């Protein structure tokens, strides 16, 4: 019997999670609906005038994406923790950080990526001009990646706790603030016709940092939570 390499184990985990997401697509759709709803709250609260919304549209888009991502984190480790799959992962003998990376990437594929694809429609609805949509999608793509990584740490730490979802928000939001600052700024620059290279590069750097440093932290948190 051949030994499973870490990479093939990671691919297995990735494909499994995507398959599960496909089967429970209703659950996956909820954060997306939440995204649209939160974005809708702002015109209702502020003004229906697109010209006015445009001034704050980068912020609206990003806050809505941030809150929707928080909601989406619910899907990350909870079911595995509940049905014992998590313990199997811990015992599997594969480097837990690699498996955590795979799960995080699967989570982004199922939750973050659809949000990015949905974003041009939401963005247009709140006044983002057509030329800025590409930057909007790119900043959200990088940003949701960072949020998946940070959120996975929070999710792993709060497994099985009562009102864990509430606590999760409290833990993740402060860590997400730099991402929010640069992400929204990128869209704002683009709306005004300027180059958004600076913030986008910073976001990319933060994503690389997150993808490198988060998996060991997630692994440590999973071990702590699973006993």
């Amino acid at each position, binding site marked *: 019997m051949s030994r499973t390499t870490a990479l093939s184990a990671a691919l297995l985990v990735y494909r499994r999670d995507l398959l599960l997401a496909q089967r429970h697509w209703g659950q996956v759709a909820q954060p997306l609906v939440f995204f649209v709803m939160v974005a809708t709250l702002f015109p209702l609260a502020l003004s229906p005038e697109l010209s006015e919304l445009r001034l704050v549209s980068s912020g609206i888009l990003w806050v809505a994406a941030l809150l929707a991502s928080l909601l989406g984190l619910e899907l990350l480790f909870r079911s595995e923790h509940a049905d014992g799959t998590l313990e199997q992962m811990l015992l599997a003998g594969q480097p837990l950080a690699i498996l955590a990376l795979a799960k995080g990437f699967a989570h982004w594929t199922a939750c973050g990526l659809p949000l990015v694809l949905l974003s041009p429609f939401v963005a247009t609805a709140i006044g983002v001009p057509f030329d800025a949509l590409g930057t909007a999608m790119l900043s959200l793509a990088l940003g949701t990646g960072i949020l998946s990584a940070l959120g996975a740490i929070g999710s792993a730490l709060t497994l099985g706790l009562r009102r864990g979802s509430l606590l999760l928000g409290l833990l993740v939001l402060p860590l997400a603030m*730099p991402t929010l600052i640069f992400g929204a700024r990128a869209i704002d620059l683009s709306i005004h016709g300027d180059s958004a290279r600076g913030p986008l590069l910073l976001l990319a750097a933060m994503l690389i940092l997150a993808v490198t440093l988060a998996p060991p932290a997630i692994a440590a948190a999973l071990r702590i939570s699973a006993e």
Partner: protein
Amino acid sequence: MNWGWFHKLASPPHAYRIAGRLLPWFAWPAGILLVIGLYGGLVLAPADYLQGDAFRIVYVHAPGAWLSMSVYATMAAGAAIGLIWRIKLAHAVAAAAAPVGASFTVLALATGAIWGKPTWGTWWVWDARLTSELILLFLYAGVMALRASIDDRDRADRASAVLAIVGVVNLPIIHYSVYWWNTLHQPSTLTKVAKPSMAAEMLWPLLVMLLAFTLFFAAVLLARLRAEILLRERNASWLRTELAR
């Protein structure tokens, strides 16, 4: 190298007693320096050219801000030592430090905001330092909330340790991004008035207050650490002899 002294220090009964004996050596100097610093800052130091007597708020605001950050660092150091070397005492230090640090962050924020009214005209500005302090408060709140919501003490210690370390790694990023964000919208003409250039008579009471607050923190930390040791201790025999004193 003989690490015996280190292991002895990390043993709960030893640490408990040493902390108890060290406490007055921090508490009394803290009190004395506090009085000296207050006298120097409130009475001796001349009023600031621009801000008048309002600048005296620095004598409680700056120590608060300094402690808010150094206590977080202490907490993160304790968390790291506790996780890496599995020393329960280090986790106890982290647990003891958190509420103290949070209280000083609140002090820094409140005094910073009150100071803002005479200097900037509003009760709150999204100034880089205040915003950074606010986010630091959120980080403290997260660590304390996480610890409070886990019943098993060991799991609580280790989970909040991971979070504290994640927080301390993020702190420079948060700092930088908030400062950057702040410079975007402020014309360079108006910068922080909060830091008057200090004459010597204004500076020495500030240094005394910083030292006083730091010694105060050390004393409070030792006191809380003793309590945390008692809460964590499983070996009944040393407890009985200790508590019977």
